[in-house]
């Protein structure tokens, strides 16, 4: 026992030792950082390191949903088409060319003669057919299976119908024919979506869901998975069998899964990562002054949903009055402050489509409209804004609550909820007003407008307009781009007249990128294609 107590005497030197160890080791570590940061070596190692934002759930293209997974899958797999990293124009992927019939519904794809899996085995038209039918098999549990509903018979198959009725025909090993429900100008872009990518038969049969581990995965994209250290890093290296191997310049990609944006930002400043695609909300002013900071338009809409099934929000005038009392310019200038674009329509502007104007900021009009409702004996005492508890959402909700209080004289409560409770409330229409956002899957307004179909799972407002549903279906049969755009404009006007939502702003891409990172483009869908990336000396 005495000896044990003697140890206490050693405490002081031990602490000193510990602290000196801290700085001692640190010295060496610091040197390493400095050398990578200045890049004094003659040629920069082509090793691109970025923070991917989270640990991916899946690297299975058929099942992936979250962006951390999709960001990596886009390097590991390739669909019939792929997208231009900058413009998102569809480019030949596994298919080198395609034909389309006059009605715009039957597409014939001709695969590259050298289309191969990363193990060197040939990739055939049947691989695509099998992969797509796997997604459409309800037992697979592919959450994005609806992306394939454009294909004739796909929806019926997904709901339990027959595989034979699905419009996918293998003509020969290198020719695949696809019949669509209607002419879809965005089909070529959609073909590059992860859900349309081919998956290998054997690893899935042998390993089930675990097939995407580094030692079992087989892909067909520009890179292959070299290492997946869970919650630490994912390492990709070039795929030697990729048809465009000669143009790949990166030798190694490391994707880090860190979620703490503050620490990730410090990591960026210390030079340990080359690209981060989110910035800490608490340091916006500082980040904006950083020379590496960038912003770019993003195909995403930030808006508030009204629950159209409960009073007083079942009255469109109330929804309109509340919408008119939101000063969006103030929000993007003072609350979000990263260059978001105020929006009065739901769909963000795209190359082929300029959304019509909805209700702008009009406090007088809002007061008048609400007075009209009140004069009919309707009382609006308190309303509640529900949001998922995050700093930015809270700030926006509080600012809007203040606007409604001041302009309309109603009591507004802003309530933050934990993510799943928030989702549940939204799903069961157990809210009054709820914060929402939507990211487009392809550059066509349909990816936004289809959300508000009566029976769509993403409607979540209880708003229903049979004429809207009919017009939505009709828009999908129009082949002429100008007429199609006109139909979308009309649809959007109808949606805005119903005002089940109050659009707030078009979101932006933002991040920090080291100046020596080249070929990393900020496109409208925030898609990463590392095949064009390289590090400059």
């Amino acid at each position, binding site marked *: 026992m005495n000896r044990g107590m003697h140890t206490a005497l050693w405490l002081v030197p031990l602490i000193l030792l510990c602290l000196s160890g801290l700085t001692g080791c640190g010295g060496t570590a610091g040197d390493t950082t400095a050398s990578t940061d200045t890049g004094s070596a003659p040629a920069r190692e082509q090793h691109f390191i970025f923070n991917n934002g989270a640990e991916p759930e899946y690297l299975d293209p058929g099942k992936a949903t979250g962006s951390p997974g999709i960001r990596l899958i886009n390097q590991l797999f390739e669909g019939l088409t792929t997208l231009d990293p900058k413009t998102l124009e569809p480019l030949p992927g596994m298919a080198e060319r395609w034909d389309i019939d006059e009605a715009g519904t039957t597409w014939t794809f001709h695969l590259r003669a050298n289309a191969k899996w990363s193990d060197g085995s040939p990739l055939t038209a049947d691989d695509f057919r099998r992969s797509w039918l796997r997604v459409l098999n309800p037992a697979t549990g592919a959450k994005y299976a609806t992306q394939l509903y454009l294909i004739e018979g796909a929806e019926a198959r997904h709901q339990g119908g027959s595989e034979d009725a699905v419009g996918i025909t293998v003509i020969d090993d290198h020719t695949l024919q696809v019949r669509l429900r209607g002419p879809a100008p965005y089909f070529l872009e959609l073909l590059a979506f992860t859900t349309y990518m081919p998956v290998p038969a054997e690893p899935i049969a042998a390993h089930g869901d675990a097939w995407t581990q580094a030692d079992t995965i087989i892909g067909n994209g520009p890179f292959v998975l070299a290492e997946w250290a869970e919650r630490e890093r994912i390492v990709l290296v070039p795929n030697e069998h990729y048809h465009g191997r000669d143009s790949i310049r990166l030798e190694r990609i490391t994707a880090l899964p860190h979620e703490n944006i503050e*620490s990730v930002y410090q990591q960026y400043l210390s030079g340990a990562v080359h690209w981060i695609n989110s910035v800490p909300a608490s340091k916006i002013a500082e980040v904006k002054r950083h020379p590496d900071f960038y912003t770019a338009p993003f195909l995403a809409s930030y808006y508030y949903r009204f629950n159209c099934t409960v009073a007083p929000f079942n009255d469109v005038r109330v929804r309109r009055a509340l919408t008119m009392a939101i000063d969006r310019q103030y929000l993007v200038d003072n609350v979000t402050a990263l260059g978001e674009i105020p929006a009065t329509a739901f769909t963000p502007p795209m190359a082929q489509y300029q959304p019509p104007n909805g209700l702008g900021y009009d406090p007088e009009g809002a007061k008048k409209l609400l007075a009209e409702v009140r004069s009919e004996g309707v009382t609006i005492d308190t309303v509640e804004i529900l949001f998922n508890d995050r700093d930015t959402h809270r700030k926006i909700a509080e600012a809007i609550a203040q606007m409604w209080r001041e302009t309309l004289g109603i009591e507004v409560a802003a309530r933050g909820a934990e993510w799943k409770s928030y989702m549940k409330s939204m799903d069961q229409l157990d809210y009054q007003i709820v914060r929402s956002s939507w990211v487009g899957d392809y550059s066509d307004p349909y990816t936004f407008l289809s959300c508000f179909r009566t029976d769509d799972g993403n409607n979540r407002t209880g708003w229903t307009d049979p004429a809207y549903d009919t017009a939505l279906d009709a828009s999908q049969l129009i082949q002429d781009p100008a007429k199609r755009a006109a139909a979308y404009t009309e649809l959007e006007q109808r949606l805005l007249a119903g005002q089940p939502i109050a659009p707030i702003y078009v979101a932006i891409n933002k991040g920090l990128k080291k100046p020596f990172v080249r070929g990393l483009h900020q496109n409208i869908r925030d898609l990463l294609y590392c095949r064009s990336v390289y590090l400059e000396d």
Partner: protein
Amino acid sequence: MGRYLLKRLIQAPIVLFLIVTCSFVLVRLAPGGPFDAERKVPPEVEAALNEQYHLDESIPMQYGRFLLDLAQGDLGPAIKYPGRSVNAIIADRLPPTLLLGGYALALAVLIGVTVGVIGARLYNTVFDHASMVFALLGISIPMFVVGPLLLLAFQTQWRLVSPPGEYGPSFAYLSLAALCLAAPFAARIARLCRAGMLEVVNQDFARTARAKGVPEWRIVTVHCLRGALTPVVSFLGPAVASVLTGSLVVESIFLLKGLGWEFVFSAINRDYTLVIGTVIVYSSLLIIANLIVDLCYGLLDPRVRYD
């Protein structure tokens, strides 16, 4: 002592069983399920996924299935991460958490006891006042403030440590994380130890020792420290729990892999199987820590009896 130990060893699994059962039911009663997402999952897919994970069965059925698997040591598949089992995730994340927690506890005891003892011996001097001010700061400033400050200073400003890169965190970086985690505990231990020391240092046995001519350092370290450590040891039991849960914050700030993160986020994600798996691990650790603490009382204070 033997009987007491046996009694506690029998109690432990019962306590664990009750905790696990409650968690099993509670996590399923929480609003939302594992497949609720911003983008609505088609009903046929949700049905297929529920079937795959047996979530379409009644809760008693699910519970029975869970117990059967548990008896074979199988915690089931992690719902959020397909293709990975809860066992594998725990095996991967627990060692770093234990390492960080153990390191932090050791630092906390080391720093806390040293500062406390010196503070008591130098009672009412500048050192004593300064150390108690630091202790108060250590207790009051949360880890999510201390952590980023340490990173800002050592990593971004002075470049003394580098963030975990290709080969995981360096020892220096880990020390920084452990220091952050240890700070509030070291502060509490310092205060407890100082108070305990002040209480015993003038008691009869110490006076007798002094009268016998025992050197002062020996009185402090051999005779008094034992008494002074009793409150510290009582504190260490719950401290183990706080260190383990506090590791979530530190793991997040220092971008370290660990079980603390999974513990909290499995609950947020409603990853039912992973929640139960982590609950089992954490409650077992707590039960063991409390048992060790109770046994330590007897070693430190001869007056404690176990019957």
